[in-house]
């Protein structure tokens, strides 16, 4: 594990054309890292994330992505992701290829990737129209023991998985508390693991069964307080639900979206400055 400033961590670990998974299910979404990818103008990324959320809406709208693997592409509790819609419906700012799963499928796809398997298996009953699309990722087979139908979901192995977590200790072990989503599986499936954390501590306050990524699994880490904002970090700050509601209006129009990104992401040099400009930093 190398402790690096975020800009350096992104510059040295995320390349144009990489498959990149910024995980964290509603909680601990690595917004600061995503914004840094936008500032460094990465291109042709294959974005992977169960719930693209606002951070992928921003990456897609800024032209960083050519492909999206996902399982639910909405603004949670609010509605649609307007930039994702614009890219799919009107190819703005560029076409976006979709690889679409259900949550359950994508969760086992990460698990397979994390376990060194080429695919994961699920029971299969009724074909959905998702499976009937040309080039659908899921394939059918029958169980060699019972003969019952199974769905095979191909493993996901991102080039880079990026997570936000609460704490890192002096050795570089990372503690994730609260809703973990498929963060652990996405990290174990990846070729490189970048982590941003709220703070560094001498000793992790970890229960024996806590979710801790060992230092030698983590490629690089950066200390970024508030790095999950406007999502949240349990024990540090709550989700800014008002911002998620406001985003629907900001992102609905190409010009207001571009102006927002210019002012709050491209126009500031780091995440602390973004939080100050938004008036969130105390």
């Amino acid at each position, binding site marked *: 594990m190398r402790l690096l400033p975020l800009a350096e961590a992104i510059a040295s670990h995320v390349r144009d054309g990489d498959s990149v998974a910024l995980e964290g299910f*509603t909680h601990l979404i690595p917004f600061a890292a995503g914004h840094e990818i936008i500032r460094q103008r990465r291109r042709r990324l294959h974005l992977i994330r169960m719930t693209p959320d606002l951070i992928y809406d921003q990456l897609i709208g800024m032209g960083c992505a050519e492909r999206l693997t996902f399982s639910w*592409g909405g603004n949670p*509790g609010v509605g649609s992701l307007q930039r994702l819609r614009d890219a799919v419906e009107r190819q703005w700012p560029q076409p976006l290829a979709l690889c679409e799963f259900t949550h*359950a499928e994508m969760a086992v796809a990460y698990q397979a990737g994390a376990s060194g398997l080429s695919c994961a298996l699920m029971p299969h009953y009724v074909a959905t129209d998702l499976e009937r699309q040309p080039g659908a990722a899921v394939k059918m087979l029958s169980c060699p023991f019972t003969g019952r139908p199974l769905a095979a979901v191909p493993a996901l192995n991102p080039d880079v998985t990026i997570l936000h977590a609460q704490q890192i200790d002096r050795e570089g072990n990372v503690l994730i508390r609260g*809703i973990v*989503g498929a963060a652990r599986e996405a990290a174990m499936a990846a070729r490189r693991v970048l982590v941003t954390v709220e703070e560094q501590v001498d000793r992790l306050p970890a229960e024996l069964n806590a979710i801790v990524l060992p230092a030698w699994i983590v490629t690089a880490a950066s200390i970024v307080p508030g790095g999950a*904002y406007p999502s949240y970090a349990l024990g540090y700050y*709550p989700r800014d639900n008002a911002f998620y509601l406001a985003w629907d209006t900001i992102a609905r129009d190409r010009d207001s979206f571009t102006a927002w990104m210019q002012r709050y992401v491209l126009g500031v040099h780091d995440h602390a400055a973004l939080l100050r400009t938004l008036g969130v930093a105390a």
Partner: protein
Amino acid sequence: MSAAGYSRDEIMTVTAARQLRNGAVCFVGIGLPSAACNLARFTHAPDLVLIYESGTVGARPRVLPLSIGDGELAETATSIVPLPEVFAHYLQRGRIDVGFLGAAQIDRFGNLNSTVIGDYARPRVRLPGAGGAPEIATHAREVLVVMKQSPRSFVPALDFRTSCGYLTGGGARRASGCPGAGPRAVITDFGVLRPHPDTEELELAALYPGVSAAEARAASGWPLQLSAALETLPAPTAAELTALRTLEARTREAHDRPVRIPLPAATRRLTEELT
């Protein structure tokens, strides 16, 4: 708010809540399903077990979450499990009594579309997509659907089938081997639809007070059949309305509270120097 002293949204939420028996294990979606489940918990079903797909098992939120993974759910849960577990150990293993779903389109057999309007490759409207819905629809012992009725949402044919109801009806779902029983009720802003016991076609089984069958039928894109035992549902009680409005007021207050993140002094100084 109507002259009746409650809105259609309110009677819809109250009616959905009444479908839940105390002690049932529910897989809860965000929005109206979450409001209905928590209203039930604060009224007749205090021991309802709520599982949100974010992995929060046994959540007892004091305010309604905006997202499926709000901190309120994590802080009040019995346990939080990784996402692959909530789908495999709880849903796929058959441990969920009731799954709650909404969608953009429903057909007469309760099949649901939450993926696209128009063609999948060139959609007119790209919707959020599947999420947990297909597996909830398949594995939950029974499903409740909550949707506002209109000819655009209650359609003769889906643009895309994301989640299965009774497929083509007449036992097709059972024959497919699907473990769950399928949609037991569709709660709308006019009343409740239930499947016919033989054909499994959804028919109007109950209306809210003051709502006519003609209005409900006009708001359906397929010729909605009336159940032989069409009934009128009771209006929300004062206790139900108070519980719902108190919960919603608490929620509004919590969501309006501004978020402030204290930055460590070192970060603050650095930022001030550079900006």
